């Protein structure tokens, strides 16, 4: 810490910061544009001008850009100096010479950093009396709208898109006051993190096209903190509603998880909530072969109550995308031993193996933020950009760790972004990636290799053996892989923060074992490894921690006649297991009761269907792949009779005369009982304050103080203002009234601070800019490794992969758009998803005489599929990839052997 003097007052600040960061961290205001807390300074906009004095006695001083000056001991500076203020207002004046001043029709209006800074810098009167320049806008795809006239040339977009996110199809073009930010030609922005441009751009150039299609001002949104449900990373989001539909998703800053950003699937995949495929009414099939008919809440409850009352043959099937509370409620309803996980057996084995490895230790699972500190990385089997997008973004930052050292040597502070990148060029910390097919992250990897999953595992086992001789070695390893293993081993061993990343997407247990061995070997060699496993779903980890039975066991119970009534929670089994097997199983269930929010194949088989809330319509707790339990909150109340899964299950239980949950009054009671019932969840109650929590006797409002139309919006029904719905489940209010100060960090419904209406107001919620939130970043880690000296090694090393004779090992290939089914209800996501295809190595294709783009008939699990062939030279020979998660493809059962049918040869 150093002492600096600002307008006569002395402050302690962090000398690692520049003066702008120090000033903002102190809670003072200074306008800025080009600096961004996640991207550092480049000194382009000249907005952050301050006066710096040589010493205490200097009265003249010099105008300087705060973002380009290190915070040095004994700095004397002024924010209020008249010249500095004048400079700041001139900068706005210059920016405004060409700005269209179209705030009333601009999507950014009301949360525009340019508006805020204009007010802050005090420029009001237009003196420029000439025409403005105009630009042609571009079509940038389904997610992002482009309105270049509003651009203030801060260069943040290109720095974010290219430097931070690794994109290459957005750039700055032309010069002088005609600089243009866009693509070289109209077209879809290709980067998977393009949506963050919406928040990075300080004005309305890049805005959310999905929001535009049902536009609402920020101040008119009802918002609450939520958690992304589209993969296992658990990114924190803010979801916003108006007139009963979900309007947009914004990143919610969490200093330990996603920081400022989210991926495009997370940002744009929300439209399933508004989908016309939503189940809006309970549906009941009066007889087995009758058509289901809509019915009311009482009837359906009575009907199901009859089925489950005094029936000991009821089982429940939970879900890895439903909350802990809903799963727990189901378990309470059916009984502990009659609750099953609802994922395939192989998946079940994998997640349980992961949990065992994490519990055993010795390595810790890192948060996303900690992943950014890794200085040697090995990725085994995961195409992270597509299976855990935000982890890929974190790894892109991690590989720059070596650049910190280079910068330090040259005395360049790390925040001086352009200079650091210049000095370090393409120098990256070691990152090794072994996957079946090429991945986008390969471009920052020191080496990337293409292997079948078992061979990736063998490489991993060999790495572990190289690090510590105690770890079992691998026989018959090729020379090439042996030397690679040696190189990777050395690199991990020599690192301060070595990281191993793997996951369940290859569906190969050997990979998990190999990764665990590497971690153990590193620990034994005295290193401090961390290990991260990606998983398939938003609550895969949470469900696995509940120690539920497997789907196979459930099936067995039904087959044996031990179960006749099956309750399925938010889970389309057709996406989990082989289609025929799913049909067979569901047909065997005498009474099938399904709770879900979207119609699907499983609901179509049900006797009774209960309409449940989507994530933004309820509360819940999810455990992400780090083992961090995080809470999401109800944003808006769904139209009756839609209600939360846990609420339905409680109502069923009560209707059936059971008292397991009868006195649970609200959501919080479910959480509390769960944390009491299962010690592994004992910390989840404390994630957020209870419903009775108040600040200054007030609730936290979900609506901004500028929320408009509260009376008018219902006036066509009733001119009396509607009674504000009471929230019994949390300390939030469905209202504009309430506490306007900063809520606890887990309960931030939107970031706002007087004078700071954009996402930049996050500064005000942080201990220091870019750091943790005041009060601690939300979420509770549930799994810490046992600190045992030496953990046992896994010893079952697989045989090397042998390409089959006329048969191909068929693996799932993942797509950020396409492999996750909820987000596919957003038209833009569906547009970005690939069509069904089959990819195959070029040599294999040549041998089979099939051409790129041609159709081939491929048989897997005895069913033929006609698919367009994509030749992918990066795939190993003998391996075929099918796109995971696309409807109509058998990816749930992969890996499996498949063959080309005669017809296509």
């Amino acid at each position, binding site marked *: 810490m150093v002492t600096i003097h600002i307008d006569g007052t002395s402050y302690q600040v962090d000398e690692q910061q520049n003066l702008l960061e120090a000033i903002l961290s102190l809670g003072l205001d200074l306008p800025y544009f080009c600096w961004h807390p996640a991207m550092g300074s480049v000194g382009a906009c000249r907005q952050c001008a301050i006066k710096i004095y040589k010493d205490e006695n200097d009265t003249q001083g010099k105008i300087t850009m705060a973002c380009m000056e290190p915070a040095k001991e004994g700095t004397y500076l002024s924010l209020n100096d008249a010249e500095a203020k004048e400079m700041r207002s*001139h*900068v706005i004046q210059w920016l405004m*010479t060409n700005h269209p001043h179209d705030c009333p029709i601009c999507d950014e209006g009301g949360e525009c950093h340019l508006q805020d800074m204009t007010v802050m810098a005090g420029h009001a009167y237009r003196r420029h009396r*000439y025409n403005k320049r105009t630009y042609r806008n571009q079509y940038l795809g389904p997610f992002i709208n482009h309105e270049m006239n509003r651009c203030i040339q801060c260069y943040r977009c290109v720095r974010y898109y290219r430097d931070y996110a690794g994109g290459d199809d957005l750039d700055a073009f*032309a010069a002088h006051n005609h600089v243009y930010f866009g693509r070289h030609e109209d077209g879809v922005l290709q980067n998977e993190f393009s949506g963050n441009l919406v928040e990075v751009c300080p004005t309305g150039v890049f805005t959310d096209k999905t929001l535009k299609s049902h536009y609402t001002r920020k101040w008119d949104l009802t918002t609450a903190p939520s958690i992304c449900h589209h993969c296992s990373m658990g990114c924190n989001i803010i979801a916003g509603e108006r007139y009963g539909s979900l309007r947009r998703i914004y990143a919610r800053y969490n200093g330990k998880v996603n920081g400022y950003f989210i991926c495009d699937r997370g940002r744009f995949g929300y439209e399933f909530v508004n989908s016309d495929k939503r189940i809006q009414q309970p549906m009941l099939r009066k007889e087995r072969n009758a058509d289901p008919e809509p019915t009311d809440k009482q009837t359906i409850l009575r009907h199901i109550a009859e089925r489950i009352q005094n029936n000991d043959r009821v089982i429940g099937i939970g879900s890895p995308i439903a909350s802990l509370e809903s799963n727990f409620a189901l378990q309470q309803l059916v009984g502990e031993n009659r609750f099953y996980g609802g994922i395939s057996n192989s998946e079940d084995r994998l997640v349980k193996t992961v949990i065992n490895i994490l519990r055993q230790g010795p390595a810790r699972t890192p948060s996303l933020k900690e992943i950014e500190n890794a200085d040697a990385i090995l990725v085994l089997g995961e195409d992270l950009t597509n299976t855990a997008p935000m982890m890929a973004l974190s790894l892109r930052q991690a590989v720059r760790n070596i650049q910190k050292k280079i910068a330090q040597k040259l005395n360049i502070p790390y925040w001086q972004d*352009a200079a650091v990148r210049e*000095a370090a060029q393409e120098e990256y910390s070691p990152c090794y990636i072994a996957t079946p097919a090429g991945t986008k992250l390969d471009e920052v990897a020191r080496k990337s290799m293409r292997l079948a999953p078992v061979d990736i595992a063998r490489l991993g086992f060999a790495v572990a053996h190289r690090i510590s001789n105690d770890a079992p070695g691998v026989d018959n390893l090729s020379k090439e892989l042996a030397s690679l293993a040696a190189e990777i081993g050395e690199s991990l061993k020599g690192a301060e923060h070595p990281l191993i990343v793997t996951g369940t997407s290859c569906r190969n247990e050997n990979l998990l074992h190999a990764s665990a061995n590497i971690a153990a070997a590193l620990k034994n060699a005295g290193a401090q490894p961390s290990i991260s496993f990606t998983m398939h779903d938003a609550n895969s980890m949470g469900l696995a921690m509940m120690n539920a039975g497997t789907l196979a066991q459930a099936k067995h119970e039904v087959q044996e006649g031990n179960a006749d009534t099956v309750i399925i929670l938010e889970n389309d089994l057709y996406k989990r297991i082989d289609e025929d097997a799913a049909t067979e199983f569901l047909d065997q269930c005498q009474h099938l009761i399904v709770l879900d929010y979207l119609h699907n194949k499983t609901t179509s088989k049900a006797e009774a269907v209960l309409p449940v809330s989507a994530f933004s319509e309820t509360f819940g707790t999810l455990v992400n792949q780090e083992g961090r339990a995080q809470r999401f909150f109800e944003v808006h109340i769904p139209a009756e009779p839609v209600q939360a899964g846990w609420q339905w299950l409680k109502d069923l239980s009560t209707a059936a005369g059971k008292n397991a949950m009868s006195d649970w009054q609200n959501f919080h009671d479910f959480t509390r009982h769960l944390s009491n019932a299962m010690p592994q969840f004992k910390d989840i109650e404390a994630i957020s304050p209870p419903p009775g929590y108040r600040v200054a006797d007030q609730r936290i409002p979900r609506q901004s103080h500028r929320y408009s139309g509260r009376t008018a919006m219902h006036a066509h029904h009733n001119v009396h203002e509607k009674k504000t719905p009471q929230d019994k489940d949390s300390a939030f209010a469905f209202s504009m009234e309430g506490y306007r100060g900063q809520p606890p960090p887990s309960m931030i419904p939107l970031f706002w601070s007087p004078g700071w209406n954009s996402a930049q107001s996050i500064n005000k919620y942080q201990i220091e800019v870019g750091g943790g939130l005041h009060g601690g970043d939300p979420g509770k880690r549930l799994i810490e490794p046992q600190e045992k000296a030496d953990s046992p090694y896994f010893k079952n090393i697989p045989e090397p992969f042998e390409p089959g004779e006329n048969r191909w090992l068929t693996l799932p290939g993942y797509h950020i758009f396409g492999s996750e089914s909820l987000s596919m209800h957003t038209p833009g996501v569906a547009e970005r998803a690939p069509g069904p295809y089959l990819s195959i190595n070029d040599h294999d294709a040549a041998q089979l005489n099939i051409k790129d783009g041609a159709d081939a008939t491929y048989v897997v699990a005895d069913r033929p599929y006609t698919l367009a062939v994509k030749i992918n030279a990066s795939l190993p020979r003998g391996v075929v990839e099918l796109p995971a998660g696309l409807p109509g493809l058998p990816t749930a059962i992969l890996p499996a052997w498949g063959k080309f049918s005669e017809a296509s040869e």
Partner: protein
Amino acid sequence: MENVLTKNIRPDQRPVSLKEYEEAGGYQAARDAVKKKTPKEVQEEVKKSNLKGRGGAGFPTGVKWGFVPLGDDAPRPKYLVANADEMEPGTFKDRVLLEGDPHLLIEGMIISAFAIDAEVSYIFLRWAYKKAEAAIEKALAEAYEAGYLGKNIFGSGYNLDMFLHTSVGRYMCGEETGLLNALEGKRATPRAKPPFPQTSGLFGKPTIVNNVETLCSVPSIIAKGADWYRKLSATEDGGTKLYGVSGRVNKPGVWELPMGTTMREIIEEHAGGMRNGLRFKGALPGGASTDFLVNEHMDIPMDYANVSNAGSRLGTGTLIVLDDQTCPVGFVLNLERFFARESCGWCTPCRDGLPWVERILESIEQGDGRNEDLDLLNMHTKYLGPGLTFCALAPGAMEPLQSALKYFAEDFERHIKEKRCPWRH
């Protein structure tokens, strides 16, 4: 005085061949330096000569070289770059050297590269200098052929590669960090300093950028010694200088003269005085981005300190003369139009301020000026000053404007009052 820069240049400006150059004693200095001296010794000699950068800023050359890390653990490769971009309006001095005596530049670069122990060098040439391009290409081929470039030059064990890069023709490419970005294939926007190119320059490696004239002065310093070189000058600053004159004088041109020659001598003797019927009104002493000097400054020695004391800069030492029958507002408008167009667009004051300045001047010139326009112009001269914009382009652009507003205030006011340009009939 003995000419050191232009001694080989032929009246018809045909480039000097390697043979001719060597016959005149060329490459002896490079040979001596590389074989008999250490880099430090070369640096010391140049420091002692008090050679200051001829690219405009006048930074002592030897001192600049001294910031480059030497020795075995220095980052490599290190680079030397000859700045031959010369896009400053009114400046055409480097062109004379580039077209007429390319080997002098190559020899200067070999010695300078050796002084910082660089292994790669570039000549960054203005796109429009086609004649120079041909001359340099030929000279480089000759020098490689003779073993003066490449591996083990002069049999000394020192290796140096030299490449010609022809720029795309933007003023910003001449600013040394913009130049480095351009050379790397990036947008020609400048870089923040520190870090200086001497420690993190081209591709992030230690780099020296020197002006062509600076580099061409080096061989004589090494050949004849710093003391001899310093004595060529009429003042404190060492050596000779290429002075040039453009504008309505009788004989516009470039001449090598002792550093510190007066403006009067340059205009009246060498440029042959003003053309018939015209009177001297003022001059930009060192290219478009310097402040006007006027009659009262005729007799000050044109060196770094004296021009600076007179409120301007020596800059490139090439005068643009304004006569009494040319409208000063139109003159400045023409310059600001150039600067506004050449702004790289990186920082706000320059990118959006210069076009505004241009349009105000246009209004005034067209008889549409308003009184408050002068306030706005003055505001720009203050807030586009050094340190307020990202690089020196905008402050440079303000120099002719601020001094015109000072010396020719009446002319600006007349435009506004009479709602017309008094020079147009």
